[in-house]
């Protein structure tokens, strides 16, 4: 897959999160998160399940409504009740663990429906842009297929192309490879890597430590709704300082080693 020949110019935006809180009933999932992502930066969120990392990601484009704190995305104050969320979300691409492709639309229609209906692009223009992104993810010939005719890895690549077709300034990835067969994980990570190299701002929730170490500028380790440790990828993963980070990484990197 030669994705490098097909670079796009990215107009990257940053994210500023401060004091972010989120509760479900009496269960506080995020206990005051501060996190900045610079334009063009790639930040990986790691941590055990239930640590709040997916919730944090979903708060950035307001799929979850925070209970406190503020989030600035590009020029938008996401937590301002007056903000135009739809306008903001046009600039924030989201890739889900379960792909969430639209099963009743073809691959090409998946990538053009929002540009046509939301950005009011002409159909031919939307198709042209969508096709270039499908080619970028190596699926230029798959436009007329339906999602259920593709493998998991192919579906996730379409989901990335669908998000890119809106020409976002920030991409959110919520465990994009967790639902994939092991042999298709690599093709998705390769595309994410090329996207990072193209200068896209990326916030990635992942369990792929090798990817985080290689691609991320910064890694944030979360546990129990707080940021426990953050820093350069090589440092947090290669030489963690906090006991909880060390414990987590030992389990993830050496799964057969179990302390009983």
């Amino acid at each position: 897959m030669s994705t490098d020949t097909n670079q796009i110019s990215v107009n990257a935006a940053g994210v500023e999160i401060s004091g972010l809180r989120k509760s479900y009933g009496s269960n506080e999932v995020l206990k005051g998160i501060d996190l900045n992502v610079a334009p063009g930066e790639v930040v990986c969120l790691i941590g055990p399940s239930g640590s709040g990392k997916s919730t944090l990601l979903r708060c950035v484009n307001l799929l979850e409504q925070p209970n406190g704190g503020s989030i600035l995305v590009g020029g938008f104050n996401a937590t301002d009740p007056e903000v135009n969320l739809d306008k903001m979300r046009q600039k924030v691409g989201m890739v889900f663990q379960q792909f969430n492709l639209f099963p009743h639309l073809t691959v090409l229609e998946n990538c053009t429906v929002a540009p046509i209906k939301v950005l009011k692009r002409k159909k031919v223009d939307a198709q042209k842009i969508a096709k270039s992104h499908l080619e970028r993810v190596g699926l230029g010939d798959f436009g007329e297929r339906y999602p259920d005719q593709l493998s998991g890895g192919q579906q996730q690549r379409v989901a990335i192309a669908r998000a890119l077709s809106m020409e976002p300034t920030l991409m959110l990835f919520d465990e994009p490879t967790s639902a994939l067969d092991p042999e298709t994980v690599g093709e998705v990570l390769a595309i994410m890597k090329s996207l990072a190299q193209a200068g896209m701002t990326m916030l990635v929730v992942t369990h792929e430590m090798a990817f985080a170490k290689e691609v991320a500028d910064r890694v944030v380790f979360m546990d129990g709704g707080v940021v426990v440790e953050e820093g350069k990828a090589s440092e947090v993963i290669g030489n963690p300082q906090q006991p909880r980070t060390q414990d987590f990484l030992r389990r993830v990197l050496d799964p057969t080693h179990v302390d009983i």
Partner: protein
Amino acid sequence: MAMTTSQRARMSKTIQIVLFVAIIIALIAIVDWKKAGYAFFSFNKLGPMFPDMILVGLKNTIFYTIISFAFGLALGLLLALMKMASFAPYRWFATAFIEFFRGIPAILVLLAFGFGLPQAFGTQWPQPVNVMCALGLVSAAYIAETLRAGLQAVPKGQTEAARSLGMPAWRAMLTIVIPQAFKIVLPPMTNEIILLTKDTSLAFILGAAMAQYEMTKFGRDGISQLDAGLTPLVVAGLFYLVITIPLSLVARKFESRAAKTKR
């Protein structure tokens, strides 16, 4: 003498078939064919029923079905959305409406429109409007529940993906959720239209000018006016099948296409 499982299964099937055939033969033997032939099969005496049975009766049955369904579908969709609304009074209203109209016989609602409304408001609506409102209200209660189930069967991730692409809630509903829900609700909706087709026969209770008769009314009048026993009702019944069986076939075609492609 022990039998193997397959021998026993074959034996059991044979017994079932023999019993079934015996019951049919017994019924045929008991029936007074002279009377039954007159009562049910005096097709040669039905001349006066036609062509009005088709030009007026069949036409009105189809017409009443379509207007009632259109009204019921629009109202049912509104109720389904109200039932899923975050504003509690909407949910209460929708629940009360659905429980009420699902719980009382359609014929009572028809009578309310035909005879209650004139007494309450001093106005008499045309027959088709009464039928449309009465049957529409009742079917809306059923349709609302069907639509709600269908809309909620579309995975939440679909809405999330659509909203993440910047679609407003109404656009996500219209472009992403409803087309997928449509395939889910097609079988129960077919049921609903078929039930509605048959319920239009209740319109006879309102009495009306000949131009507004539907098929059952023609059948009932045929009993008293023609010397053909119950044959006019047999014919009316056959004409209902002329409507409902093609409906089932079309729906089944849609379903199998949807099942084959999962979309």
